[in-house]
């Protein structure tokens, strides 16, 4: 089967270069700075959206580059990540479906 054959032939031997790691690191630091700065500006309901978007971008960078998901030939890793996010989403979304539609809360 694909996931066994292809994957077990070549182990994900990607060695991250110094440069790219430092670049990601700088991007993460920049993200932190931006998110702190943005928090002090009143954007109304967008404050939360901006903060979480930046957090998600940072998290994505970590997953893709620091955790080497970008370089892996392994589709399975992606599947595991996607399903974790999916079921987390289910938990949050369906619980909120109750709380947001209660006539009294």
């Amino acid at each position, binding site marked *: 089967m694909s*996931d066994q054959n292809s994957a077990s032939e070549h182990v994900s031997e990607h060695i991250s270069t110094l440069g790219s790691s430092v670049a990601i690191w700088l991007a993460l630091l920049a993200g932190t700075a931006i998110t702190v700065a943005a928090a002090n500006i009143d954007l109304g309901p967008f404050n939360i959206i901006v903060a979480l978007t930046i957090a998600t971008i940072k998290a994505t960078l970590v997953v893709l580059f620091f955790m080497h998901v970008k370089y892996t030939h392994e589709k399975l890793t992606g599947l595991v990540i996607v*399903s974790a996010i999916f*079921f987390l989403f289910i938990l949050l979304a369906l619980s909120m*479906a*109750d709380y947001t*539609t*209660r*006539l009294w809360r």
Partner: protein
Amino acid sequence: MATTDGPDFGERESYLNAGHGLKSWLLTVDHKRIALLYLISITFFFFIGGFFALLIRLELLTPGGELVQSDTYNKLFTMHGQVMVFFFLIPAVPAVLGNFLIPLMIGAKDLAFPRINLLSWYLYIIGGTLMVYTILNGGVDTGWTFYTPLSTEFLKTNVISAAVGIFFAGFSSILTGLNFIVTIHRMRAPGMTWNRLPLFVWAHYATSIIQVLGTPVVAITLVLVALERLFHLGVFNPALGGDPLLFQHLFWFYSHPAVYIMILPGMGIVSEVVCCFSRKRIFGYTAMTLAVVGIAVIGFLVWAHHMFVAGISIYAALIFSLLSYFVAVPSAIKVFNWTATMYKGSITYQTPMLYAFGFVGLFTIGGLTGLFLACLGVDVHVHDTYFIIAHFHYIMVGGMVMAYLGGMHFWWPKISGRMYPEGWGKLAALIVFIGFNLTFFPQFILGYMGMPRRYHSYPPEFQILNVLSTAGATILAVGYLLPMVYFTWSMRYGKPAPPNPWNAAGLEWQTHSPPPTFNFDEQPVVTWEAYNYDEIGEIPEKEKEEVPVAH
């Protein structure tokens, strides 16, 4: 390494005689030995849980509640539920049969992480010890559901030790699931493609998804319950602004999918057994694989059907009711496909097949009554009545325990290297079936009449049905004791089993009974589909009780 003591299996070395002494068992990393460790431990807990069940039934013989105090009764059903669910049924099939068989079925030498497998067992034992401590230290009376704020602010019993015990059992279950997922992905023998996997393996794959992604949520929830009790955080305490319904959401987010942990592996067993004793391919292999995965995934979307009258939004109730029906469709496919598998088969009725019949029938009844509960208008009336009790015992006891027993009989020759006594096996299956129905069918009627569950005393007009139920439970007890006795007996006195007594398909039957430590003498290479009974043919006719057939 020649053996002198223990059962004599000739010169051949098997996992059973590969090492001696307690240490060789307690430090083993062999999945087959770990499976036996689990077998012993879950049997222990099954009898504890069963003992509580018998006390419950004895108490309910009379309406007045004379036998035990109400507090004691509350502890009885709580500990019955917790022990049966977390320490018996959830690990029952995966950790015993799954552990033993998955590497054999996919042609591997062991699970991917043998030491983690042993760790799982130790976590289970730590959890189990805490549970036993809880029982001996005066018990716990939260109900198996731990509803807040009762469990966090009001009860004075051992809530924390029970919660922590279940937390450990939960992590044991998570690690088992993790091990299975990785094993099934990474350890398959050459040629063992996904669409050649036995359905037993598929069922465990689906189960593992639930174990890995559902269990952590209940784990953190129980941590919060313990913290609430210790520090009064208020997260679930309405007096401090908390919402008790949040606890219910988090609890059922796990515990509904968990009911599928408690049925999918049984479905896997039944698929193997039905095929073997009909000498046929499974009807609609692809649909069967999609169905188990579908049940596992959709099972995550329906949890609030346990909360229809709990005070959730009615719109949420409408959604969850609808979603609950979706999960029934793949279940229906399974039932119909098993039935269709028998069509034009060549069916024989050994004990495992009898249990498989029992499973299909009782699961159907239990499942269909699940549809009553998913139906909002009816659930408002029967919620928290004996109708619920009957529904889930039909599935869990009538379905899963039957499947478990069927599987134990089916693979006992492989596990122990001995045959069990067929006549006794059939008798026990019959007793279990009769006892079961007598115990739990009256509870459907009681439930619709309105007898609430978790009641220590009840109005006298409910008595007759309760008496019937108690009578059934005693029969059931006999039915469960029998296999226990003759399995033990057969370990010493049973006929030595050939490698493949049922002439069944599946890699596990191609190695010795009992298998050697590394499972196969040489690495198997798979070139055939699952259930290739067309090539295998009939069950060997030795000294079997054959009914002469004239048709």
